[in-house]
């Protein structure tokens, strides 16, 4: 009994702490509702939060929300997965093979900070306006942080750790898989954590520009029909989807890095 009570109070405490920590968001949401009701803005410029949430619920009940969400997430996750696999592989090659380093290092240095959405018209010419161009665009944007993190992570592995493994009987061919990759994992995961929201952002941008289906396309359609609550509902849906994605990746990171110092430290939010 006492244990159950303790469990419940633990849970209650955690929930309360969650509310306190997300306090600023609640303040913004309440401010939105009050401002929209104050009469300073027309419902067209700023619909009330309650009407927007009602639209979100409506979209959810009709199934449209899940249709859009699954299409957008499918593109984002597929593009992210390709960028992750190719980026890690390319990063390892750049870090280990001088000729590949010579070839790709300047390209990565220029490409990383460049606004790559500028290539969107080119991608539309080459690949059309359907999934191929959207997913290619996502890969193109998301791959750079993965490559950069993998190069930095694998080059930064302590050589004494590699030597230890060699003297314990590891062969040269075992070193990459058994030592370098696990040692570089925290940095590679950081690169992936940058790449994933990038993938989501680019998925929505391509949908807004190229149309079709997905959350971004629904938003731009709502905007064209002057459907103000529809546009704001899209923003709320994207924010929620993004938050869920980020949180699940953080959970995966904690799982993978139980051994890492950061896991022993207190996490924020």
């Amino acid at each position, binding site marked *: 009994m006492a244990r159950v009570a303790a469990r419940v109070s633990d849970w209650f405490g955690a929930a309360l702490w969650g509310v306190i920590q997300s306090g600023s968001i609640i303040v913004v949401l309440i401010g939105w509702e009050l401002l929209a009701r104050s009469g300073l803005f027309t419902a067209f410029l700023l619909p009330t939060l309650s009407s927007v949430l009602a639209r979100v619920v409506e979209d959810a009940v009709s199934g449209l929300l899940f249709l859009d969400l699954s299409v957008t997430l499918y593109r984002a996750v597929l593009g992210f997965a390709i960028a992750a696999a190719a980026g890690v592989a390319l990063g390892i090659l750049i870090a280990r093979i001088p000729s590949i380093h010579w070839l790709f290092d300047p390209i990565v240095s220029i490409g990383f900070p460049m606004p790559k959405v500028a290539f969107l018209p080119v991608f539309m010419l080459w690949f059309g306006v359907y999934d191929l161009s959207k997913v290619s665009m996502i890969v193109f944007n998301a791959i750079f942080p993965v490559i950069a993190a993998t190069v930095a992570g694998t080059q930064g592995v*302590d050589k*004494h*750790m590699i*030597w*230890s*493994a*060699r*003297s*314990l*009987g*590891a062969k040269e061919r075992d070193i990459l898989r058994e*030592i370098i990759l*696990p*040692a570089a*994992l925290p940095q590679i995961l950081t690169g992936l954590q940058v790449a994933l929201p990038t993938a989501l952002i680019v998925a929505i941008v391509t949908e807004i520009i190229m149309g079709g289906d997905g959350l971004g396309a629904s938003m731009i359609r709502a905007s064209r029909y002057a459907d103000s609550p529809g546009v704001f509902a899209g923003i709320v849906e994207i924010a929620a989807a993004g938050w869920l994605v980020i949180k699940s990746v953080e959970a995966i990171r904690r799982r993978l890095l*139980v*051994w*890492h*110092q950061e896991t*022993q430290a207190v996490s924020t939010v």
Partner: protein
Amino acid sequence: MTSDGGSGAAAIRVEGVSHRYLPARGKPVLALDHVSLEVREREFLALLGPSGCGKSTLLYLIGGFLPIGEGLIEVGGKRVSEPGPDRGIVFQHFALFPWKTVRENVTYGLAKQGLPRDEQTRRAQEFIDLVKLSGFEDAYPAQLSGGMKQRAALARTLAIDPAILLMDEPFGALDAQTRILMQEELLSIWQRRRKTVVFVTHDVQEAVYLAERVAVMSARPGRIKEIVDTRFSVSGPALFKSPEFVERVDHVWNLVRGEAIAAQGGAA
């Protein structure tokens, strides 16, 4: 080089070894200049010298971690060309695998030897107990203190039973008390499981206390300046106060001092 017979064959033979390294910018630097040295079977030899004298480089060459440009190194009569489990190494900063627990770190080398699972676990436990880390088998390195990390690294290396133990300033990163405790424990382990030990340090007292012979190296380019016999009739903590110990520390310190000053002042 000095041979007084009886102590057995040479475990390690270094002959005319020179080593140059290329700094990020600038000309190649001569780190070791025609170094010759013999380490006897089951002896505890300290390599002592000022920082930058190439003593760690010599250790890495024996370990097979660096290519030997000039000269010859033989271990057990065989020419060194790459690292191997006959030469275990312990580094100053432990070089544990941080994603593995203490037990997984220790079993890594045992798995490489192809031992069956239960034998790996049994042997790992034996060496974890030997270095007094019992109870921390499932801890990750990040959860251990510096001294405990070095115990874990020592267990990992000893578990594969190397004939030679190479130690690269193993207690250099530890606080003074932990260092003294670790020195005593290393000695007691070495007395129970005699191995050939090459111990790199820049601490004169540590070298004279632990080793049977101390090879004093000159400032860069490193050469073997003198080999001092540091075996004593007294043992244990009483040794520190014995006149012969104090006298020998003084002698070795005088050898090192000139070199340390030369190393500080650079090439001039």
